[in-house]
């Protein structure tokens, strides 16, 4: 091939870019294989990386360990939203400086308590607890059966991490049939894990602690002292003062409001 022919062939194979200064180099035959190897390498890396991440997550979350599995529970978002940002200290919900204190005596299994928690509690929280007018103390009672005590112990143990109200509210929102065995380890685990900032393992470890036993005994004593014989029971009064038994005419915020307002006015 003459020199002129080689030059013409080069021009055809490697078209010049604008200006004629740079040209696109043709892909050598060996590069197809090297690109294939590159793609295979990327694919391998993707498979390995994804498998390691998913596997580590499953193992890390206890997916294959003896820790209880979780079950589907409802109202997680609504509960967390309702209670977010409100101070909790043990059995207490609301500002310690609130002028009014209400004690709620409740069994985690009682349908009436569930009705109160659904119908009145959210509005009471929004209108009185969040603005710092009322603080509520949860006095857990266990008299309906084995599920009551199991749930109560878990709720009180969550109080050790100042998350009692989140757990109690979620258990009510997911309440089962009385004494049907609905308070399972799986349910408690699911509730515990759904509460922001709560160490579910620690809660489970503390369900039989002396602090939990003391809380249960104190609540039972006060329940008797007030002469209450059913749940939910309420006692309302000025913070630091004497509380009076309160029997609401209905489970709605309107039934509680006049009593709250009376003590708020007295505190001014």
């Amino acid at each position, binding site marked *: 091939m003459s020199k002129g022919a080689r030059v013409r062939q080069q021009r055809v194979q490697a078209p010049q*870019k604008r200006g004629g200064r740079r040209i696109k180099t043709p892909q050598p035959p060996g590069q197809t294989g090297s690109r294939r190897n590159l793609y295979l390498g990327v694919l391998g890396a993707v498979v390995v990386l994804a498998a390691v991440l998913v596997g580590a997550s499953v193992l890390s979350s206890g997916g294959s360990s003896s820790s209880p599995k979780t079950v589907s529970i409802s109202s997680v*978002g609504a509960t967390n939203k309702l209670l977010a940002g409100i101070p909790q200290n043990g059995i207490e919900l609301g500002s310690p400086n609130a002028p009014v204190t209400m004690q709620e005596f409740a069994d985690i299994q009682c349908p009436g308590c569930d009705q109160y928690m659904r119908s009145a509690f959210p509005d009471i929280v929004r209108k009185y607890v969040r603005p710092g007018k009322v603080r509520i103390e949860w006095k857990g009672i266990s008299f309906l059966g084995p599920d009551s005590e199991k749930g109560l112990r878990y709720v009180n143990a969550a109080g050790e991490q100042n998350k009692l109200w989140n757990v109690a509210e979620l258990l009510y929102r997911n309440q089962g049939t009385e004494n049907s065995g609905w308070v399972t380890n799986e349910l408690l685990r699911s509730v515990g894990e*759904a509460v922001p900032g709560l160490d579910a393992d620690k809660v489970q470890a503390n369900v039989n602690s002396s602090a939990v036993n003391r809380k249960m005994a104190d609540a039972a004593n006060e329940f008797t002292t007030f002469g209450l014989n059913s749940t939910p029971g309420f006692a309302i009064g000025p913070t630091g003062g004497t509380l009076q038994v309160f029997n609401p005419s209905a489970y709605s915020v309107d039934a509680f409001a006049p009593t709250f307002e009376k003590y708020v006015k007295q505190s001014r």
Partner: protein
Amino acid sequence: MSDRTLRVAICVLAAAGAAIAGYLLYERWTGGPLVCATGGCETVQNSRYSKIAGVPVALLGLLAYTGIFVTGLLRTELARAIGAALAVSGLAFALYLVYVQNSKIHAWCQWCLASDAILAVLAVLTVVRLLREPEPVAVAAPAVAAPRRR
């Protein structure tokens, strides 16, 4: 779409993803409340699936987005390959976490879903960038002597 456009899009999306992961990580370490329309962000953030061997998933996300961002700045074949590997494996893990939110935690985190959407687009862009022909290599044109007149 030119390689330059692809790289710009990859960098912008990776920066957005890093911002989300950084926000989740910051709130996790400071214990602050998350802005959350879905109501389940904190539930997901505090679940046992939010950490792998003690390392927050948000931190892994931040590292992955940073890596993808850096590969978007580079023009080498290796950078394209690493970017695609990070984005696609990240997307696979993100899909697993969507399953976890739906079936295990029963709560949805809007920030996680936004991050998943970004990862999905990033996976497409980085794979497109990887599959394209390499950019023309800049070499000097062979000096061609003008044919001599006889």
